[in-house]
């Protein structure tokens, strides 16, 4: 049996045409609106309270809609956006260094290795400037210069300083801004907040998304929540690799359940491997910790020139060190985009020149920067990151160079959405990392925060009304509708099934094994043979999971093993689709590197003739998904071989 079949191409993405600078403006004007008096009669469910979900819920409530918000954490303030360290891009050009909306647009399309939509990216660049204004007004304490104005720094993949930051905790500060706006709306009664609730199913009635089935993680109660539209802001699926920089709870369940109900899943194989993470220390490892990419502004990456040189780094003289990023990419140096920096690290380690006990690490050295700027300046910029490194490794990075290694960090793929951020199920909107829309095959640093907030504050609140304006014609449905009851029953049965297997392996042991398969074959470098092997292994392991997993306790009340089991079960299905997608994309682009497709000097080799499209996968239930292609057109940024040399 073939792994997949090909269906009709996607005909309409609702992207407007005409001059790119005017598309968003015109589209907004052409969209229908909802009368303020009618808004409060309309209910919108928002799943997830990160930058995208939190900002969307707050903004929709401010507009007057009735919002029901859900998150699995104990408070909306803890969504994983909080862990983003480095910064947020915006085309403010405060530095007068040649930045503009067009340049941010250009950098993002190029950085995405020409696999994103021009219209979407341009819109993102346009609203980026409003995001900074909005966040400052909320009291986000961005770093400032002595004159009282905002400071910016440079980031990978760009030659302008357009990244706004709040020390190494930018994500936290932006998220708290959105959270506070959300809490204000909760206090005003416009948002009904449900923390420690997990979405386990989407309710689709007459082809429209009309609600979700959730489990109260504290009481175990399953309930069906109905609405006029459903917004998923449930983040990425990096935890399919088990070890990633994602929070332990991050999962694909909300997205995957929607996919099973008909939402296309786009480009699942596009995974970002972040070059600067703390290396794995042992089998007990439960997650990987990122060191902000901003460290590459001042840190220099190197390995010894000789294989197996395990001298103390201080004893290795300058001329026996290989500052390989500066050597290979002289114009961008240590600031090459993430995919390139990660693969370069993998290559030197594969050559046997890696450092640290496992040999899977490279040095990130601040000695020069400390000498040039002084320890104080480095402390002010990166103090908290250095402390974090020391706590985890027991080594002082002011004295010894940091050791870093790439780790899974972000997933560019996600549920397919049109220009309005609506999925292939009408009434189901997807925002933030959960959708696939803006980053193509590789995301530039400091663009995730930008996209999350752009979607939540400025895009969705302007596109959702166009859908809700017709809500009068959807027909009244409640939780007793047969489709809603069926969804709920399916959830209950699945929970009972997981609890009743009572096998001899823990959920984590399966998750760990799945992660190893994925990292090995669908990680930094993929090959046809490896992917085929991975698909077989995943299928075998999934079958074993449903035979042998042991989930202790019951469904009543808090049961963390049960939560994990449901999530891992969905990761198995996603993992298979990722491998199929990676296998079918016979080219290398951005975060997807196929060993068979590289230039003579080892760079990614795109194939624009055959693969300049978005791969949107439809679930069939037969194990054989259907591929729908959405062709990508480049009118403003012409695809070239990316070069950062």
């Amino acid at each position: 049996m073939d792994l997949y079949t090909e269906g009709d191409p996607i005909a309409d993405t609702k992207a407007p045409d005409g001059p790119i600078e005017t598309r968003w403006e015109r589209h907004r004007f052409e969209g229908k609106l909802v009368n303020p008096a009618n808004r409060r009669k309309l209910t919108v469910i928002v799943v997830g309270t990160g930058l995208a979900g939190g900002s969307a819920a707050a903004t929709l409530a401010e507009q007057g809609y009735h919002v029901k918000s859900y998150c699995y954490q104990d408070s909306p303030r803890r969504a994983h956006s909080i862990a983003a360290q480095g910064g947020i891009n915006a085309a403010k050009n405060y530095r007068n260094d040649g930045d503009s909306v067009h340049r941010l647009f250009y950098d993002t399309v190029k950085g995405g290795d020409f696999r994103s939509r021009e219209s979407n990216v341009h819109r993102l660049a346009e609203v980026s400037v409003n995001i900074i204004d909005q966040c400052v007004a909320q009291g986000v304490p961005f770093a400032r210069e002595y004159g009282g104005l905002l400071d910016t720094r440079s980031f990978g993949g760009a030659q302008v300083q357009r990244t706004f930051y709040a020390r190494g905790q930018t994500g936290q500060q932006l998220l708290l801004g959105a959270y506070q706006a959300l809490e204000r709306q909760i206090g005003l009664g416009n948002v009904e907040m449900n923390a420690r609730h997990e979405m386990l199913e989407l309710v689709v009635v007459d082809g429209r998304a009309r609600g979700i089935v959730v489990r109260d993680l504290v009481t175990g109660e399953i309930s069906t929540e109905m609405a006029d539209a459903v917004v998923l802001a449930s983040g990425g699926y990096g935890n399919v690799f088990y070890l990633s920089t994602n929070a332990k709870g991050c999962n694909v369940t909300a997205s995957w359940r929607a996919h099973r109900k008909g939402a296309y899943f786009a480009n699942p194989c596009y995974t970002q491997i972040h070059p600067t993470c703390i290396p794995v220390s042992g089998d007990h490892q439960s997650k990987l910790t990122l060191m902000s990419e901003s460290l590459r502004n001042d840190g220099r990456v190197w390995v010894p020139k000789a294989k197996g040189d395990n001298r103390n780094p201080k004893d290795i003289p300058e001329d026996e060190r290989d500052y390989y990023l500066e050597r290979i990419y002289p114009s961008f140096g240590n600031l090459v985009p993430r995919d390139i920096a990660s693969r370069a690290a993998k290559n030197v380690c594969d050559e046997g020149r890696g450092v640290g006990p496992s040999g899977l690490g490279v040095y990130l050295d601040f000695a020069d920067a400390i000498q040039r700027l002084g320890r104080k300046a480095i402390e002010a910029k990166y103090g908290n990151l250095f402390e974090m490194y020391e706590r985890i490794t027991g080594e002082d990075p002011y004295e010894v160079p940091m050791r870093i290694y790439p780790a899974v960090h972000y997933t560019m793929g996600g549920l397919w959405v049109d220009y309005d951020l609506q999925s292939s199920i009408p009434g189901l909107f997807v925002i933030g990392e959960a959708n696939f829309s803006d980053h193509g095959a590789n995301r530039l640093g400091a663009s995730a925060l930008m996209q999350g907030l752009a979607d939540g504050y400025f895009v969705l609140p302007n596109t959702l009304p166009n859908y809700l304006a017709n809500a009068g014609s959807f027909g009244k449905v409640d939780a007793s509708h047969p489709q809603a009851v069926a969804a709920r029953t399916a959830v209950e049965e699945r929970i009972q099934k997981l609890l009743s297997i009572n096998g001899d392996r823990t959920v984590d042991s399966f998750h760990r094994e799945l992660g190893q398969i994925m990292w090995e074959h669908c990680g930094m470098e993929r090959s046809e043979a490896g992917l085929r092997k991975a698909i077989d292994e995943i299928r075998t392991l999934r079958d074993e999971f449903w035979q042998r997993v042991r989930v202790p306790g019951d469904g009543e009340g808090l049961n963390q093993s049960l939560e994990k089991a449901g999530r891992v079960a969905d990761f198995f299905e996603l993992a298979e689709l990722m491998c199929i997608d990676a296998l079918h994309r016979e080219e290398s682009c951005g975060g997807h590197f196929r060993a068979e497709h590289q230039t003579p000097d080892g760079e990614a080799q795109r194939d624009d003739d055959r693969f300049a499209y978005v791969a949107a996968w439809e679930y069939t239930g037969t194990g054989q998904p259907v591929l729908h292609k959405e062709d990508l057109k480049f009118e403003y940024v012409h695809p070239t071989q990316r070069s950062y040399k």
Partner: protein
Amino acid sequence: MNLTLRIWRQKGPEDKGQMVTYQVPDVSPDMSFLEMLDVLNERLILEGEEPVAFDHDCREGICGMCSLMINGEAHGPQRGTTACQLHMRQFSDGDTIDIEPWRARAFPVVKDLVVNRSAFDKIIEAGGYITAPTGSAPEAHSAPVAKANADAAFESAACIGCGACVAACPNGSGMLFTAAKITQLSLLPQGQPERYTRVIGMVDAHDEAGFGGCTNIGECAAACPKGIPLNTIGRLNRDFLKATTKRAGTPGS
């Protein structure tokens, strides 16, 4: 190393709960504290027991979810460190480690080491924000902020809402959490219009949630994994006094 753990086990909010002893052999010093608990849980599951429920998420010290009282200290013995970032090299072979949940009326135990901290959300809801609906913001550079104020605002804004301050406070007070947000917002020009209504609202919500009063002992700041300074409480007090004496809301006041 080999460790003896004494862990608070409580089936649910109504259960009485008790300390239960577990032996954990072969702990690597490179493990994080939570990874050590993971190892214990994996074993408990295979032995047919219920694993220990504890809150955790990002495991990099920023989400504020983890909340363990370790040997009577919030987040354990290392200063400026959350439980998830605490590594086992801080302990020695043969140690006995007591692990308890945060204890406060405002943070009722949900199960084992998991508590409900929604009281903190209530405090923010009562005024811990600047009213700036999306779309209404002026140009970011229209109000410069002195660097010293911006830096101090950031220092307070670094609060992760974990509740260690409450857990450590002999009075069970949440004043450091409340003061951190008040300090952040009152140091910024954008926070001025709501400055005095904010402090009244948040302090009232704090008291209503059942937290104790502050007696300036300073345990909170010593336990805070993010180093929120104690003087933020002075800023809260000053704003509170002003708010109650200046007849807030009088035009021109």
